[in-house]
């Protein structure tokens, strides 16, 4: 017991000395929805790229095991405890993270959200990979381009509570009148699980025998749907499109199950989020509506009245460029 006491005292002493010594570099935490997802691993690469460009930045890439708000709160609590300089989070839940992130801001930490946003009072600024309207338009355009005569399309989404997917589907519905003949027959949810998405895609093909396209605005769903189309022998009949990762979609493009799909570049996104967090934490710019933030090689972004900014247009991948990108992310 005496030993334990002694060790604890030693640890306290070590803590006192270790604290200020490591405060040289700016520490920016990139908090993702869950670890082990290709998209976020690529974003982390971009963050590292920004860090080496800036020089005095250390990136902490972290996130929970499952895509839960509770898991992210535990991670964020640990980051607050470490007194990081900035937290850039892709949120699993718009609202649930707000109290914890408010606490982070009260303790002097710069908080931004990127990719999947946090409610306005839970962050200083938000970086959208693209604008929701452009994405909503893009996913239906990709399907419509292959259907000049019109046809039936269905949506395979992630979970019913996914912030991103719900907004995109909403935006897609808004621009549907611009695509005459395109008829959305239904929306199903694969929960971003490969097996469930696969079954839901199978179900769609059974429920709607005349289905022409499946739009999956999720990187898990689109791969599962393409596989379901191949397994059902419906390549050429049902076109799978939406948002996916080139590395995971290369096979589907090759087999013809998917003619084309879109995604922004996650490397650019991680890069831009890091740049944004850096300049805000450094005090170069104030996070206010109309503020212009330099984000390195990606140019300049402007915050709108909700404190959000859009990075760029989504990028279309098809058989002409898939080989160049499949090894990147």
């Amino acid at each position, binding site marked *: *017991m005496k030993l*334990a006491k002694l*060790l*604890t005292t*030693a*640890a*306290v002493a*070590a*803590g*006192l*000395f*270790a*604290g200020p010594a*490591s405060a040289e570099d700016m520490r920016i935490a990139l908090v993702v929805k*869950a*670890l*082990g997802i290709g998209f976020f691993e690529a974003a982390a690469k971009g963050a590292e790229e920004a860090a080496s460009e800036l020089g005095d930045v250390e990136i*902490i*890439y*972290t*996130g*929970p*095991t*499952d895509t*839960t*708000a*509770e*898991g992210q*709160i*535990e*991670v964020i*609590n*640990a980051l*607050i*405890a*470490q*007194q990081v300089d900035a937290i850039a989070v892709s949120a699993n*839940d*718009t*609202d*649930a993270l*707000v*109290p914890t992130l408010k606490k982070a801001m009260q303790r002097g930490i710069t908080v931004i959200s990127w990719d999947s946003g946090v*409610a306005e009072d839970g962050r200083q600024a938000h970086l959208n990979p693209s604008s929701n309207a452009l994405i909503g338009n893009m996913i239906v355009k990709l399907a419509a381009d292959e259907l000049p005569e019109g046809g039936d399309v269905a949506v395979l989404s992630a*979970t*019913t*509570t*996914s912030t991103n997917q*719900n907004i995109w589907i909403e935006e897609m519905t808004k621009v549907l009148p611009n695509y005459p003949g395109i008829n959305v027959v239904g929306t199903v949810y694969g929960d971003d699980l490969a097996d469930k998405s696969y079954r839901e895609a199978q179900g769609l093909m059974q429920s709607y025998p005349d289905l022409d396209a499946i739009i999956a605005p999720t990187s898990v769903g689109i791969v599962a749907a393409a596989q379901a189309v191949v397994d059902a022998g419906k390549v050429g009949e049902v076109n799978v499109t939406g948002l996916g990762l080139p590395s995971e979609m290369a096979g589907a493009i090759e087999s013809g199950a998917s003619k084309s799909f879109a995604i922004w570049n996650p490397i650019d996104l991680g890069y831009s989020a890091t740049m944004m967090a850096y300049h805000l934490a450094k005090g170069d710019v104030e996070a206010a509506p109309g503020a212009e933030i330099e984000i390195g090689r990606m140019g300049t972004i402007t915050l709108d009245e909700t404190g959000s900014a859009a990075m760029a247009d989504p990028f279309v991948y098809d058989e002409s460029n898939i080989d160049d990108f499949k090894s990147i992310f």
Partner: protein
Amino acid sequence: MSLAETTSAPEARARGPVPDRLRAPWEAKLKSWESLLLVVAIGIFILNSFASPYFLNAWNLSDATFNFTEKAMIAFAMALLIIAGEIDLSVASIIALASTAMGLVMEAGFGTPAIVATGLVTGLLCGAFNGVLVTRLGLPSIVVTIGTMSLFRGISYIVLGDGAFRGYPSDFAFFGQGYAFWVISVELVIFAVLAVIYGVVLHRTNFGRAVYAIGNNPTGALFSGIRVARVKMILFLLTGLMSGVAAVCLTSRLGSTRPSIASGMELEVVTMVVLGGVNILGGSGSIPGVVIAAFVMGLVTFGLGLLNVPGIVMSIFIGLLLIGVIALPRLWAKFRGRA
């Protein structure tokens, strides 16, 4: 603090009523389990202090307690239920349903007292539903609660869909974000009070004795005059009620309700109970064990979080800890038996 804990646990056991144990070696084994856990907890605490300069900070440790307080509240009732040979896997779904009901009441314009009451009553009703199916219809609890696990959360999804309840009154934040004094959060106080209550109920009352008896031999217990069905019903009600309490705390802490709230929490609760030395087959276990297990799990998650260890590694660590803590006493007993 650690000194007090090491001495008080075995003392309490020595003074306690012996009749609920059959043989002395049985008790000795149990004693070693809790001491082993305590050693693990202290070890983790010391390791963490060395590993991260941010660990020994009152506010940081206070934040860390939120990693386990809500789960532990349910774990106390779950411990009793598992000791009695039953299980409730629907607890996380009860949280979702209770939280949804609370959101509906909030939307209807009621204040904090009504919201809290709704959460607790919903929990009780869910517990009653499980209890009736198990005790009256004689269905196995694992099957019943796997069913209600989908049922309760399903209702939340029907009510909320992809929406969320937000805008809880500001005084409602007291439960999950409030502090009783200094760094001691309201949740930590609730946790401590419940720990004492459940400790007394299980280790110092006839009811607690009955719980052990049922777990060891339900038929024997019945013929000894214990109203087995009634005791089990009460345990299901308690588990439901504790899920309601956890729902109030978690909803207050998140400040919002989504149907995906607390998903997967049931397994963490069961892990906590088993790590605390409760026999998953029923018949033995203690509340001090569960309390220490709660701290162990909280300290491990927070300590590894401070080192920015990926969550996947944390799950592996918790899994190994679980297997290790359960296997060690058995291996030790085997080794000693051979020597």
